Structures are given as C-alpha cells and as structure tokens.
C-alpha cells in the first residue's frame, strides 16, 4: 500500500467505506426486519407493509407472550439441557482420541484420523435410518440422552481432528520428562495435556455450542414429543400455528437466535479460528 499515490489511496478508502457500508446494510436487512417486526403490534404491521421501518410504537409484549404462553421458555430450556452436556461430552471424549492421535506412533494413526475427518462430511441422511433404528431398540427415542449421545458422537469427527492439530504443537519434552519420572500416560493426559489444551477446547466449545444449539434435523428424528423439542423445532412448529401473528413469530426468532448471536459477538476470535481449519495453511 505504501507505493500507492495519495489520491489513489483516498479513492480506495472512500470506495471501501461506501461499498462496505452498503454491503453490510444490505446483508443485515432481513435481521433488521425480524427485529423491528418483533416489536410492532399486529395493527401496525397490517397498516403498513414497510417491514424495514422501525416501529412507530414499540411493543414489548410479544416477547412475554411468546416466552410464557407459546412455551418458548420450555423450548429454550430443552435446548440448554441438550446442548450443555453435548458440548462437554464431545470435548472430553474427543480429547482422549486427539491425545492418542497426537502423541503415539502406530500404524493405524493416519487411517483413524481419516475416518474421523471423513465422518464429519458425510451427508446426515446416511445416518438417520440406522441411528433411529438403534435408538429405538435401546429405548432412546424421545429421551434427552438419546439426542445428546448422537450429538457427542457426530461431533467427535471435527473435534478430534481440531484438538489433535492443537496437541501436536505441545512440546514433546513436556510429555517425555514426566514419563521418565514414571508418570502414567493417563496422568500425563490429565495433568499436562488437558490443562494446556483448555484454551483451544474453549474455542472449540464455543463453536460446538452454537452448532448444537442450531441443530434441527437430529432432534426432528429423535424427539417427537412437543414438550421435549428444542427451540429450532419449537420455532418451526410456531410458524405453522401462528401463521398470521407475525410479530409473535418474529419475537420467537429473535429469542431462538439470541444465545448463538451473543456467544458469537463475545467469542468472535475463537469462533473464526474454528471455522477456518484447512483454509489458512498452504
């Protein structure tokens, strides 16, 4: 950039701000629409079709209504009950596999890694019927453990791969020294590698939490009773039921979007480092 002439630099900067602002504004219009609609009364929505305009009168009751009467509170609680143990479980279980793949030399190391990476890319539909069948035979349909176990297992592919890459960077001397002193490998995993991996596990946890929070298909197959449904399915149901009360549906969307959005804004850096695996190194 140093070699650019001054006038060209100014022109480029202007273009950056003008195009950038336009782009971001265009991209976020749908979200603004949902936000404004959730705060309008039905009368105002019917009177003016300009959905992108801020409400003339701000109405907060839609949120209370959706939260209490429509049962959004229950759906959000269900999602929290499903997502929290799923994230913790997948982090713990995958850290075991990652430890093995990062520190041991054995013939099947690479094939096992390939199996984990391939599994995370397989179309979900390949798993649905057999998993439904297995869950049915184990009595896991319509139970939270049934969904949680499937989440943990399915996310293992990505998490094992991600954590393995991180653990490879742990200096080998940190592993070898205690070994010579007679520490067991499990102790090394628990006392040395796991504490060193906390930051990358936190990054991974943030990403996993939003993924699991946003899941629809898996719960659709395994949870068929309304009182167990997560917020994504609750919202989809609501759409059928309250077809004409759009302010309520919009309020429901904002509630369903809340947690992932806040998490993203707070932990942005972690979030992105997880998403760009493979794109960075040449």
């Amino acid at each position, binding site marked *: 950039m140093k070699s650019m002439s001054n006038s060209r630099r100014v022109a480029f900067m202007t273009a950056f701000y003008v195009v950038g602002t336009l782009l971001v504004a265009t991209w976020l219009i749908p979200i603004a629409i949902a936000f404004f609609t959730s705060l309008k009364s039905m009368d105002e929505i019917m009177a003016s*079709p300009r959905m992108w305009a801020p409400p003339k009168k701000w109405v907060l009751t839609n949120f209370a209504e959706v939260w209490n009467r429509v049962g959004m509170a229950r759906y959000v609680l269900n999602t929290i009950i499903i997502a929290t143990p799923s994230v913790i479980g997948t982090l713990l279980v995958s850290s075991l596999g990652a430890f093995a793949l990062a520190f041991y030399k054995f013939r099947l190391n690479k094939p096992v890694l390939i199996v984990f990476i391939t599994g995370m890319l397989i179309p979900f539909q390949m798993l649905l019927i057999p998993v439904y069948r297995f869950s049915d035979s184990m009595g896991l349909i319509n139970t939270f453990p049934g969904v949680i176990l499937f989440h943990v297992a399915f996310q293992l592919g990505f998490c094992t791969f991600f954590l393995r890459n991180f653990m490879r960077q742990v200096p080998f001397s940190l592993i070898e020294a205690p070994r010579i002193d007679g520490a067991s490998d499990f102790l090394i995993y628990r006392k040395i590698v796991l504490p060193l991996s906390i930051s990358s596990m936190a990054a991974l946890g943030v990403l996993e939490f939003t993924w699991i929070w946003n899941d629809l298909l898996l719960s659709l197959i395994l949870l068929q009773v309304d009182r167990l449904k997560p917020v994504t399915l609750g919202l989809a149901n609501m759409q059928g039921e309250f077809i004409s009360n759009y302010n309520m*549906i919009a309020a429901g969307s904002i509630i369903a979007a809340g947690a992932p959005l806040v998490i993203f804004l707070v932990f942005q850096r972690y979030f992105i480092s997880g998403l760009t695996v493979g794109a960075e190194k040449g």
Partner: protein
Amino acid sequence: MTLKKDKLLPWAFLALPLAMYLIWVILPVFQSLLFSLTHRDTIMYGRKFIGLGNFVRLVQDPQFHIALANNLVWLVFFVGIPIPLGLGIAMLFNQEYPGARLYKTLFYVPMTLSFAVIGTIWAWIYHPDFGALNTVLRLLGLEGATRQWLGDKRYMTLALVFVGVWRQVPYVMILYLAGLKNVPEELVEAAMIDGASWGQRFRHVVIPMLAPATVVAVTISVIDSLRAFDIVYVMTNTKARAAEVLASYMYSSAFHYQDYGYGSAIAVVQFAITFAFIVAYVNNTLKNELQR
C-alpha cells in the same frame, strides 16, 4: 518424536471415541448402504433383499428427478455465487482501516443464525401480500415482477436457494480472509512496482496463493448444497414437493411414508454425489495438516 513404549496404549485412549463413532456414524453408513438394497416398511423387521430394485425405482420416479434437478440448482448456485462474491468481499474487507473489523463482524452475523431462524424470517419476507420483497417491487412500480415466491412451483427453489446463498457468502468470506493472511503484502507491492496491472496481479499473484482456501470453500459449498434440508423443511414444511431436494425427499420417504429401503437409496445417491468432494477435502486437509 513419538512414544512407542506400549502398542496398546493409544487404543486405550481411542476406545471410547472410536466406539461411539462406530455406533453412531461408521456402522450406520454401511447399514444404509445395505438397507438401500432391501425393501422394508417397518424399521426393525421385514427386510427383503431386492438388489438394485430401489435404484431402478429411483430412475423412473418423477419426484426423484425433481429433487435431483433442484439439488443441481442448489449446487450450481452454492458454488457459482458465494465463491466469487465471498472472495471479492474478503478482498475489500481485508484492510486495516478503522471500522474494518466491525464490518467483518456484522457481515458474519447471518452465519451464526440457525436455518430455523433464517427460514422463518425469509418466509415472511417472501409473503405475497405483506412481504418486504413484493412491497419493494410495488414501491418501485414493478407490480408485474411480484410473485408468489413460495407458492409458485417455478420460483420456489430459487427463492430457497437465495436464502442459502445469503448465509453461505459470509462463510466463504471467512475462509478467504483466513487464506489472505498467507498472501504477503510485499508480493502484491512487488507486482505493483513492476507495473503489473491490477487484473494481472490478481490473477497471477493472489489467486494462486489462495488455492488452498478455494479448495476448502468449493468442497464445503458443494457438501453443504447436498446437505440442504433445514431451509426446505422450515420454509415449505416438506409439503411443497416442487421444492424437494434429495435430503428432504429422503426424509419424507423414510419418515412420512415408512419406505426405509427407498429412503436409504436416496441417501446413498446423495453420498455418491458428495463422495468425490469428500475425498478432495480429506486429501487437501491431510496435505496441509499432517506436515505440522
């Protein structure tokens, strides 16, 4: 530089993760392959081996043709729009001007939302009477361009794909921003001093250096386009058969019509189309990650 004291130790650590992966991911893949060769109308019992019967049925099934054609539309748009647009936006936002970070953050936001939320919002935007899209067209005096976006067979799939693309562009941008960290600014500068025009610099310097990011972005977009289900489910409730894609047709065949063998066959087709891209992604990843 690796431990080799005990050959059994790695397997002690791998036992739990591998067992879980085996039960919920690996075995199901093989079971689905097997189920696709059977006729079964209950999920537990009553399987009958019919060879390639389900696939013969697929070839003759007009609904399958619709789903396959729609999926092709998804695939073409998912690669054709987000890749160039995501790259362009990444190039634009890859500056250190004040506010650039805010732009990037805001632009990512659609990526963090679930398809349930996105589909719900867009269904309202597409509403024929109150929706923002038709309202804008009317305000612009383009009454004739208004459509029943989700009610007309001809526009349904395009309307759904557009929503998917809207969410995919920020994702591709993230991938390219990560890739751009690798392109040294001196290289770009050297090209400028040499007098290379902007277009040439872009083609001969930037594009080759972004190749790894492009491989990831293209393969992920292809795989995502074949996985499209949530948008279709939320915005049409899988009742609009004209908008069906492979993933949703598999779901309705298996879980609405209890045609499990046939559903498995559709899943196998989905898998077969994705397979080459999965291999490409795995290859690329191994090349990049295993050398560390």
